[in-house]
């Protein structure tokens, strides 16, 4: 891709490597003058990594960034800002304790005789915000205004400071429909002024409403850049979730799952504001997949099943016996296990050794009064390190030094050590390399052969298809479809998500 004059910003071959994972793999991205360019992808696809490379928050490991025909290499967000690239984040990055005017002019206050002239500053702030149809008291504290107004103030500051490229990182996540409309009016006006605008969101309706072109990333790689008008919603979802491998892996699930009695039975299980009540039956030795876009209620489903969020309606039964799932402790006692999505935050205890991490859940279930002896721990750790092929120099190594895939396997080992009947895996293959993917999938298959019931949440559709006997599709925090048997295909899942997404718009 050659930079040409219609491009205000073009990035080519951007690489970013983190220890243990390749976050960006030769990604190309270009931005025209006067366009809104949506940057899409699931969690961990590399959107924010790409943005951070563009704004200098991360140093890229390879590739070229050209702004207005000149190569740039910003080392900090401040430098990027001075070059002309401004960013507005979902969490408004302004100071709530200062006034609106002080926020707009921090670091560049108008001065008279060496002293800051508040009157001049307030007048200029007022004039600046008038361009955005915002008529507010600029001498009032920023905290007095709604998030939407703060967002506009942040945009005004970013545009005033940089003026070439504006990156909006999920600006609408906490706004209501009316506020989104106001924000979009402003974005359209900035587009007319010739700014290049990068818009990151996971609301597809908004993408179709405002963007001119769409770039989709997946697993740190570029899937493609298309004009919004030529990209049907179905195709976009397929780009985001991927289906290249459909033909190869489809059909692997048919053999199992139909047999067996229902072991776990959930009826009307839900929590207000979290996930709508759903029914769910799971047999012994069955893998049930959960699919849906980001924010559709996937993780919420897992949390409620594990008691991380207490259900406020419905019943749970195992083999006809009522289950107590009021807290994770209770769920562990009922032989439930849960590998959460963000293992760095919720899963591993980075400074503890592999052995201690593996023994953690079993110890928690036994209670602190009955410690697992060091010998037992060693034995346990060695067994799982061998069984799951966890690559570590020894079991006493701090777990944070392991690669992502091996950390994931260690967490799996933690739950397997408790010998659970019911295991929930939230994005088990996120952020680990392709080789480890296959191993985790094989592991899932062998666990279910042993009679364990599994729930697997994944945005990798081909994986879901490979191991699930049934797939439940989520949308807007509700279970909207269940695919069984031969209906479990990536096309079928994409269809189900797209159908429901269409209803959202209507």
């Amino acid at each position, binding site marked *: 891709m050659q930079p040409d004059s219609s491009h205000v910003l073009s990035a080519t071959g951007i690489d970013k490597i983190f220890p243990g994972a390749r976050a960006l793999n030769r990604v190309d991205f270009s931005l025209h003058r006067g366009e809104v360019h949506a940057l899409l992808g699931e969690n961990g696809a590399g959107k924010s990594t790409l943005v951070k490379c563009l704004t200098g928050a991360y140093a890229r490991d390879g590739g070229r960034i050209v702004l207005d025909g000149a190569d740039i290499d910003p080392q900090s967000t401040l430098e990027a800002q001075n070059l002309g690239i401004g960013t507005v984040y979902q969490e408004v990055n302004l100071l709530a304790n200062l006034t609106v005017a002080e926020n707009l002019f921090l*670091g560049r206050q108008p001065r008279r005789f060496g002293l800051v002239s508040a009157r001049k500053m307030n007048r200029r702030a007022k004039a600046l915000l008038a361009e955005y149809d915002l008529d507010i008291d600029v001498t009032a504290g920023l905290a007095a205004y709604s998030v939407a107004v703060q967002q506009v103030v942040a945009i005004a500051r970013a545009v005033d400071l940089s003026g070439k490229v504006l990156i909006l990182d999920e600006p609408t996540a906490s706004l209501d429909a009316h506020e989104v409309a106001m924000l979009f009016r402003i974005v359209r006006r900035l587009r007319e002024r010739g700014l290049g605008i990068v818009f990151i969101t996971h609301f597809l309706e908004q993408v179709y409403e405002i963007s001119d072109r769409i770039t989709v990333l997946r697993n740190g790689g570029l899937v493609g850049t298309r004009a919004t008008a030529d990209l049907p919603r179905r195709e976009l979802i397929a780009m985001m979730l991927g289906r290249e491998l459909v033909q190869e892996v489809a059909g692997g699930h048919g053999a199992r799952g139909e047999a067996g009695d229902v072991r776990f039975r959930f009826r009307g299980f839900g929590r207000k504001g979290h996930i709508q009540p759903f029914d769910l039956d799971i047999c012994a030795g069955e893998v049930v997949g959960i699919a849906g876009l980001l924010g559709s209620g996937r993780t919420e489903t897992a949390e409620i099943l594990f008691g991380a969020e207490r259900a406020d309606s419905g019943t749970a039964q195992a083999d006809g016996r009522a289950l107590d799932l009021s807290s994770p402790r209770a769920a562990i006692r009922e032989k439930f296990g849960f590998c959460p999505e963000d293992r760095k935050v919720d899963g591993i205890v980075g400074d503890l050794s592999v052995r201690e991490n593996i023994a953690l859940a079993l110890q928690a279930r036994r209670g602190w009064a009955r410690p697992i002896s060091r010998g037992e721990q060693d034995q346990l750790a060695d067994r799982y390190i061998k069984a799951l092929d966890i690559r570590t120099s020894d079991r006493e190594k701090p777990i944070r030094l392991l690669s992502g895939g091996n950390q994931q396997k260690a967490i799996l080992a933690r739950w397997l050590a408790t010998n659970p009947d019911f295991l929930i895996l939230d994005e088990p293959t996120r952020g680990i390399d392709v080789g480890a993917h296959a191993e985790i999938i094989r592991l899932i298959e062998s666990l279910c052969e042993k009679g364990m019931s599994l729930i697997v949440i994944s945005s990798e559709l081909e994986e879901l298809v490979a191991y699930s006997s049934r797939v439940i599709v989520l949308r807007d925090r509700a279970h909207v479809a269940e695919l069984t048997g031969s209906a479990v295909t990536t096309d079928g899942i994409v269809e189900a998500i797209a159908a429901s997404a269409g209803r959202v718009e209507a």
Partner: protein
Amino acid sequence: MNQRYLPLAATIAIFLIAYAVCIAQYPNMLSTRVMGNLLTDNAFLGIAAVGMTFVILSGGIDLSIGAVIAFTGVFLAVLLQSTAIHPLAAFVLALVITTAFGALMGAIIHHLEMPPFIVTLAGMFLARGMAFVLTIDSIPIRHPFYATLKSLYYTLPGGGRITLIGGLMLLVFAAGILVAHRTRFGANVYALGGGAATAQLMGVPTGRTTILIYALSGFLAGLSGIVFSLYTSAGYSLATVGVELDAIAAVVIGGTLLTGGSGFVAGTLVGILIQGLIQTYITFDGSLSSWWTKILIGALLFAFILLQKGLIQFTGRRRRHA
């Protein structure tokens, strides 16, 4: 009214009410003599509290100032006793040392990412220890220049005196107000108190600002030490123990948030005057133990912390409903 001014308004109201109560009981307290003495007696505390205001506004704390004041006093006394150096030169030297000391603490806080509490606690022990190294005795200062300085005052109608050190405190407050509200440095101090990470993203030079803040606090502690040595005409290494806590109390009673980012230098002056007023009242009464000062200041502090907590919650709720 802009609710940012609420704590300041509350402080001023409390001062006026307290003064009115005092006058009702002891009409003599209305005289300019009492007011003049209020300024003179609290001059060293007020000057140090201006520095503390900047530190607290930025979200930090400086525990070293009491020790720095004592060190400065001892340093001046020893220097004037054992050399023929002119006091003005000694003042400059003392200020250079204390400013550098503050800047060093600021640099450690910023570059080593250490909590200000720990760094300035170390600074407190260090400064106090240095004072002891110089001498463990109380050394009188008998330089004629001191007598000259102490004889300078402006007579108010009614016989009250604005002494040199009382006037100096008012000047320092005026300069502090100007710096806090009318310079970019002042804006950066508030920005730092609002959130260091965000301030950095918005382009505030956090390192330079942090170092300058603690250097300023060190400078004012040194100046306070000079004023204290003029006030007492002596240097003693055990003097001004706990003054940093009185300064913090004055800052908080003056309406500045302990978490930083909100408050006024002018409020600190009122905070100082309230403390002085309580002390004066106890002197007038004659029968009360001086510990009542501490008890009343403690109660006031509690009241102000509750007021601030309430304000923060009120703001939070309004923001959610907006």
